[in-house]
């Protein structure tokens, strides 16, 4: 970022001159101070870099490596990829995850934006902050806990909202989780745990719009809806696209929700509903680590492409 570059040069010059007074060896003194500083920096990042190599870079390379090997450790080219893509379970899983992503993203983007705008429009601060907090609480129940909780909610015999389920014509748990409903069911669960955090983030972004701008819009006679459409939404665009990219990338990895539901529904929800479940089956049921790695690599490439594109084009992280 430009600001820090500007700040850096005068302060470095000052630091340099001050060291110039105190240096013991006239020649090369400044250089060795800079050298010491960068050596210390290397020390500071070393632990993180080790972890990044061990659990970021290396597993990725290793997965790519074995995805190109056959079961006997011989190079097999695209054999594993051809095998998993040709698997009769692969395309249904892609469709399932695609349908889930569609339901989830549309719901998430529309509702999070709407709710953030409404919460932001509240006059009373305590009310607005309490509502944000209430929306955020389910975030504490991510993971298997939230899915187990939703097993109850989706079960008409015990559900707190059984009236709603009956209204939709669901009399049993198995009816609620019938295949046609699953993308929406998973979208609702994901929304329940994840939306609150995004609403808080969006609210923060809305707060960064200067009051004068909103005041000026009001003076010009713009109502709440027009202000939202013409001023607030354009300013939120970066954050909305950030949310979309993050959600797309993590949604494609769907595993725990279908896994737990499959276990609970006695396989009414199939064990190979999502791509990650299929990768799991390859590794643990078929003992085909290479095929499993091939699916992991496909998913990883999708995530990596999305995030790289966003870091480079999104402009959200321009500070340097």
């Amino acid at each position: 970022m430009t600001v820090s570059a500007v700040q850096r040069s005068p302060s470095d010059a000052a630091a340099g001159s001050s060291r110039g007074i105190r240096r013991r060896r006239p020649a090369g003194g400044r250089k060795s101070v800079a050298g010491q500083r960068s050596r210390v920096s290397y020390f500071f990042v070393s632990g993180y870099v080790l972890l990044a190599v061990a659990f970021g870079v290396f597993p990725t390379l290793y997965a790519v490596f074995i995805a190109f090997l056959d079961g006997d450790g011989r190079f097999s080219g695209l054999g594993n990829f051809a095998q998993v893509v040709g698997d009769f379970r692969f395309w249904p899983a892609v469709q399932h995850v695609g349908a889930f992503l569609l339901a989830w993203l549309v719901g998430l983007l529309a509702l999070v934006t709407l709710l953030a705008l409404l919460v932001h429009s509240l006059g009373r601060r305590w009310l607005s902050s309490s509502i944000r907090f209430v929306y955020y609480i389910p975030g504490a129940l991510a993971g298997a806990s939230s899915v187990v909780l939703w097993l109850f909610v989706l079960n008409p015999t015990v559900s707190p909202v059984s009236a709603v389920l009956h209204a939709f014509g669901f009399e049993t748990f198995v009816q609620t989780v019938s295949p046609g409903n699953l993308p929406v069911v998973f979208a609702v669960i994901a929304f329940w745990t994840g939306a609150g955090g995004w609403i808080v983030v969006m609210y923060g972004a809305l707060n960064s719009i200067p009051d004068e701008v909103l005041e000026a819009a009001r003076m010009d006679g713009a109502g709440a809806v027009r202000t939202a459409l013409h001023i607030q939404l354009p300013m939120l665009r970066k954050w909305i696209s950030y949310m979309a990219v993050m959600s797309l990338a993590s949604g494609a990895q769907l595993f725990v929700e279908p896994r737990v539901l499959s276990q609970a529904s006695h396989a009414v929800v199939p064990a190979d509903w999502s791509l990650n479940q299929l990768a799991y089956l390859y590794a643990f049921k078929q003992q085909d680590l290479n095929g499993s790695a091939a699916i992991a690599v496909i998913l990883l490439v999708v995530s990596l492409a999305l995030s790289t594109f966003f870091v480079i084009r999104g402009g959200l992280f321009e500070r340097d």
Partner: protein
Amino acid sequence: MSATSTSTRPRHELGPRDWLGRAFTVVVLGFFVLFFVVPILWLLIASGKSPHDLITTGPFAPGTLDDLTANWTALVQFQGGIVFRWLGNSAYYSLAALVITLLTTIPAGYALALGDFRGRKALLTTTLVVMLIPNTALVLPIFLELSAVNLIGTPLAAILPFSFYPFGVYLTYIYFSTSVPRDLLDAARMDGCGEVAVFRRIAIPLAFPVIALVGFFSFVANWNNFFLPFLTVPGRAAPVQVGLTELLSNVPAFNPTAAGVTAIQLPTLAVATLLSVTPVLLIFLFSQRFLVAGLTAGGTKE
């Protein structure tokens, strides 16, 4: 701020359109308050009901203390109190990873923000890219790697992958590059502080808010992580999130083949679910103010 000022001095009388807008706001926000809260309230109530009452009484009819005790006893008796072992595992993995995460991410974020070294830009970009990759994407590759070095089933197989936390580095980096002036550090250097002393005596005390934030996010993410420990620390070494699904497979209502001495009834499962989220829920409740402010600070850029 602007909202409070307008509500105290209204510019014009409220017309029917404004009332409609208000009604819309109240209805939508109220509906979602119910949507987010009802399942959690129900879980609290269901934990205190007998299996029979759970089905026959209304969903919000209160349970009894006796039934709560009975459910608790049933949970504790399952496989000789293995639930405590699961909770202990969760605490051990999450806390150990938390310590390693703080020890590695805070200095790294500091050096990336205020240091000057070769490869800084590359490391920063890599951190951003990896941060945006969902952690589940690396689970299978990490499993394959750990099984190649025979670590599967050992505590390290959960702790070490949990400790790699690029988002924490990013948060620390943002914090140091926006809230800690370089001049302050340079002043300390002029007074003869070495680089490590500058970090320990000046940067760390200033960084308390971000240390708390990184610690919070890391702990919650690790406690709730399912996919990674599900593969790398199965069986008795599992954390409570994985244990919960083990319980689930012993619930006859969901799995008819599970009937028998070890059968788990639905309210017992509800107690276990509640227990599995209690630590994180408590942290949430006690850090409410700090959290909403911290998330906002992390969310807004300038």
